[in-house]
């Protein structure tokens, strides 16, 4: 009993600390990556005893600054909701990770430990539910600030997230139909199979359009460029215009946590999660009959590593997108959401169901 | 009446007209330095050379009289070359110190070089060094290096001021303008030589290095120095207050008016603008409380003045209020004073004539003994029908208690002498002073209202000949000050009368309707040179 509780707490802490640290690293990465993309150097001045570490301490300096700053609440705003909003945002963004598997079952301390905080049979619905609840953070922040710009940002945020959530829902239906499960662990395991004996049956292979649409809608869901209308620095500053100190820091953190969440979901649903092509329980089985046998523990560790690398890659990719594309206009955003992405996802769904029906 | 052709345009002019005058009528510009319409003809600068058909050599346009059938060319290549050559000769020894020269910007050497010269200098020799920055009189400074010996100034002192202080000495390249032995250029018209000097040789000591001329804006006005009403331009610096210690009005220049002052004004008028930006200006309204002046807003002080006026009228009566206006006020100011005090309040004790103890004298040219610009207008407006004479009141040993005295721009201490003025003022319970500058009388008043000077307001003056001439606003009124007619209007409003004149033109419109001497006059008809009312003296009551 004690051991299993320790293991559960350990898993929670592992995921939580991993995600939060990755989010912190992403703030540094965003700076550095954008700088390298634009032929610049990027933040590199923060140092400890003259040791700069490529500006990594900037993250530390930023968080110290965030904590040390004045915590401002608009005098005419709603103090309670204003304080609550960033916590709601960050909380729902973080608990979504509970249902995401970061590895297969590992045999440790004489026990089979599932590398997932909680294996829900409706995991995917759970993740989407938490994502939808995240809207509350945005709306509350916009509304409680008693600021027209913040309010406008909140409104934009909620309508944008609603619109694209529908698309997200429709795109993954195809995946769910093919893998016939709502449990994320089952979906990942199903992606370990091979099509015609040599192509990994990853989501992206069986649902290429769905993958693309999911990426688009996912970026829209994170409210980052090119879909940063709720923020819109150059026009309205957005729903967190009246936030300062660590409350603002929480919103920023949420931003990056959501990026990681979308990267994890893409990995899980379309890129095989922790799967490595041709890696079975006892080692690699390449199509030509060539085999490399490995121990069960090392396979599990390789799979975790594979999951991490994939998530990291998609984080990088999302940053690349964020620093490449300009912001949409609001009408363009809505048109894209309702008139392009959503109808295509419906068509994709129809085509998938037809194929599934025919191939069965 | 010969008819001639200049540049293919023909014109008929009276006998004795010179080519330059005929060309002027055709708006053809002929460059000139020595020619001045107010002076005799010298023909010394040779800038006005023109080509006359059938005359083999160039003729100076200023000194050649027109004849029947004359054909003149002023813009042929030959003429241009000749003029450019003359200019090159004139500039041979010119120091080209435009950066430090006050004339720069209004210098005819600069202007004609850009229009007719534009050659490259061929002068390789050293320029002749001469006297620089030589003070030759109380108002004028001479730089002989810049002089082109046009002799305008010499002709001016000989022909206009008849004071004969300067002349041209030595010969050839050594000739230069010098003072005659034992003399300095000190006459009441000496400032005019600065105006007529086409170059920077004679400059004004008063204006020296105060400001560059291109910073100045020009406003047409009338000199308030005496009853002649010389036409002037106020040159004011509105944009750059760091010059001349923040002075706004920088200088006055005469403005041509064939009927009044021609091209000239006297030095007394020319340098009489200093009071406009003087530290003694009253810029804020104030009342005296327990012997100390207390500065309040203009509306508060006007309200207080209204209360005092109402109190005097209600408690004691109309006989207890005396209004002393001033011949320095414009016709519009005087009319509003008459309308409010005389007609609306029904006061009879309104006058402007204060006997002056220190009468100045005039001269036989422009300056008049009466140093007030609008005595004639004040007579016409204020002395309409009431028979009140201030002199009687002033001289009377008065036993009856007087309540309120309203003084407009009247420094009684100066005009009456201190003892008399004090005695007179002490007869009153309350003294209101409306004026622009602090003086010994304003200090004695109980309530002071700041009025704008002539440069800060618009309106009309009537000169001693009955010529109504317009003054225009050159600068904004200082501080809280307002034109007198506006102050009186506000006072009237404080007592419940409706005075809503928008501008001086509206006041003048009513003035023209109501005052018989001004009938048939309209503000816009006055124009730049004024309108004479010939029968103003006959209509006088």
């Amino acid at each position, binding site marked *: 009993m004690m051991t299993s509780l320790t293991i559960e707490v350990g898993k929670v802490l592992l995921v939580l600390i991993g995600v939060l640290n990755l989010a912190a690293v992403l703030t540094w990465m965003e700076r550095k*990556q954008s*700088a*390298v*993309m*634009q*032929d*610049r*150097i990027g933040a590199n001045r923060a140092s400890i005893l003259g040791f700069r570490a490529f500006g990594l301490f900037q993250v530390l300096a930023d968080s110290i600054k965030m904590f040390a700053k004045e915590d401002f609440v608009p005098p005419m705003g709603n103090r309670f909701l204003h304080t609550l909003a960033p916590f709601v945002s960050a909380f729902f963004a973080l608990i979504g990770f509970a249902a995401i598997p970061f590895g297969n079952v590992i045999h440790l301390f004489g026990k089979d430990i599932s590398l997932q905080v909680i294996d829900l049979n409706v995991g995917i619905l759970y993740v989407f539910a938490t994502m939808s609840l995240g809207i509350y953070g945005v709306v509350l922040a916009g509304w409680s600030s008693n600021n027209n710009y913040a309010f406008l940002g909140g409104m934009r945020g909620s309508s944008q997230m609603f619109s694209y959530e529908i698309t997200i829902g429709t795109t993954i239906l195809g995946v769910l139909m093919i893998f016939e499960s709502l449990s994320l662990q089952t979906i990942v395991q199903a992606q370990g199979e091979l099509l015609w004996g040599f192509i990994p049956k990853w989501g992206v292979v069986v649902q290429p359009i769905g993958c*693309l649409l999911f990426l688009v809608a996912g970026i829209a869901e994170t409210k980052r460029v090119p879909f940063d209308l709720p923020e819109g620095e150059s026009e309205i500053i957005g729903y967190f215009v009246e936030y300062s100190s660590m409350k603002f820091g929480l919103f920023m953190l949420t931003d990056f946590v959501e990026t990681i969440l979308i990267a994890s979901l893409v990995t899980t649903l379309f890129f095989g999660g922790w799967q490595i092509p041709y890696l079975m329980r006892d080692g690699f089985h390449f199509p030509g009959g060539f085999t490399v046998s490995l121990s069960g523990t090392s396979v599990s560790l390789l799979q975790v590593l594979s999951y991490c690398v994939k998530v990291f890659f998609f984080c990088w990719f999302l940053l*690349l*997108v964020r*620093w*490449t*594309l300009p912001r949409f206009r609001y009408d363009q955003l809505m048109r894209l959401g309702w008139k392009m992405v959503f109808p295509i996802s419906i068509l994709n769904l129809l085509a998938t169901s037809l194929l599934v029906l025919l191939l069965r | 009446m010969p008819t001639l052709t200049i540049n293919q345009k023909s014109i008929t002019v009276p006998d004795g007209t010179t080519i330059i005058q005929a060309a002027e009528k055709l708006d053809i510009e002929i460059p000139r330095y020595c020619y001045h319409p107010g002076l005799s003809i010298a023909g010394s600068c040779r800038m006005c050379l023109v080509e006359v058909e059938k005359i083999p050599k160039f003729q100076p346009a200023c000194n050649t009289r027109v004849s029947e059938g004359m054909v003149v060319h002023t813009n042929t290549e030959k003429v241009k070359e000749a003029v450019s050559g003359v200019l090159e000769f004139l500039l041979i020894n010119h120091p080209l*110190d*435009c*950066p*430090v020269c006050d004339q*720069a910007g209004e210098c005819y050497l600069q202007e004609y070089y850009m229009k007719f010269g534009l050659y490259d200098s061929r002068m390789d020799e050293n320029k002749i060094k001469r006297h*620089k*920055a030589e003070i030759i009189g109380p108002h004028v400074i001479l730089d002989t290096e810049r002089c082109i010996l046009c002799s305008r100034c010499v002709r001016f002192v000989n022909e206009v001021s008849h004071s004969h202080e300067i002349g041209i000495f030595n010969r050839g390249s050594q000739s230069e303008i010098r003072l005659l032995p034992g003399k300095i250029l000190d006459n009441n018209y000496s400032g005019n030589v600065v105006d007529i000097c086409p170059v920077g040789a004679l400059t004004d000591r008063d204006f*020296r*290095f*105060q400001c*560059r001329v*291109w*910073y100045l804006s020009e406003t047409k006005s009338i000199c308030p120095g005496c009853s002649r009403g010389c036409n002037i331009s106020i040159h004011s610096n509105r*944009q*750059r207050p*760091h*010059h001349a210690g923040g002075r706004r009005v920088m200088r006055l220049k005469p403005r041509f008016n064939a009927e009044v002052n021609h091209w000239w004004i006297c030095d007394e008028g020319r340098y009489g603008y200093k009071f406009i930006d003087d530290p003694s200006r009253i810029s804020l309204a104030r009342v005296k409380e327990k012997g100390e002046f207390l500065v309040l807003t203009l509306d508060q002080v006007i309200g207080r003045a209204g209360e005092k006026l109402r109190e005097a009228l209600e408690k004691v009566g109309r006989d207890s209020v005396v209004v002393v206006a001033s011949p320095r006020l414009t016709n519009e100011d005087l009319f509003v004073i008459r309308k409010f005090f005389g007609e609306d309040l029904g006061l009879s004790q309104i006058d402007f004539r204060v006997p002056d103890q220190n009468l100045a004298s005039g001269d036989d040219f422009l300056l008049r003994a009466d140093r007030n610009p609008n005595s004639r207008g004040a007579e016409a407006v204020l002395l309409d029908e009431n028979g009140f004479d201030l002199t009687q009141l002033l001289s009377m040993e008065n036993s009856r208690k007087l309540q309120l005295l309203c003084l407009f721009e009247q420094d009684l201490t100066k005009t009456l002498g201190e003892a008399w003025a004090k005695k007179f003022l002490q007869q009153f319970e309350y003294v209101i002073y409306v004026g622009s500058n602090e003086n010994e009388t304003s200090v004695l008043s109980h309530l002071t209202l700041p009025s704008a000077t002539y440069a800060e307001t618009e309106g009309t003056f009537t000169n001693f000949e009955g010529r109504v001439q317009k003054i225009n606003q050159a600068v904004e009124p200082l501080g809280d000050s307002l034109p007198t007619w506006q102050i009186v209007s506000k006072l009237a409003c404080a007592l419940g009368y409706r005075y809503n004149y928008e501008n001086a033109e509206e006041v003048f419109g009513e003035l023209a309707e109501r005052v018989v001497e001004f009938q048939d006059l309209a503000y816009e008809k006055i124009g730049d040179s004024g309108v004479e009312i010939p029968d103003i003296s006959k209509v006088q009551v």
Partner: protein
Amino acid sequence: MGSRELSFTERLYIIEVFKGLWLTGHHFFGNMKRHLARQLGLNRLKKGAVTFQYPEERRPFSPRYRSRHRLTKRDNGSPRCVACMMCETVCPAHCIYIVAGEHPDPNIEKFPVRFDIDLGVCVFCGFCVEACPEDAIRMDTGIVEIAAYSRKEMIYHIEDLLQ
């Protein structure tokens, strides 16, 4: 703004998006390669970024660069300026304030009693230098760090400008 009619592929947007990603990705990897090469000491010549590390590393100024003004001096150390106010006149920002005075030497005549430049207002257009007939004002000091704690301190007086 005139806008060009977009072609069909451009209106599809997705291709353009990938083109954009290709471009920025190209920069990213190219620069990363150069950064790495420098870090590992393989190629010190190629820099991964165009950045100058400002306080330590300074971009060399071109000789025509317009930096803070200075007033030139005569041989005896007095300012060459004769207070002709050409610079004050031509200044589009109206940030030069000159007050002229009478110089004891009649051959100089005029000199600036006050010559202030409000560098908080100056737009560094260099017109004053162009306009000066005496070569009395130059913008060749190379001083670009002009900052102060108050607007008043941004006004440089004749003593500061002569140094």
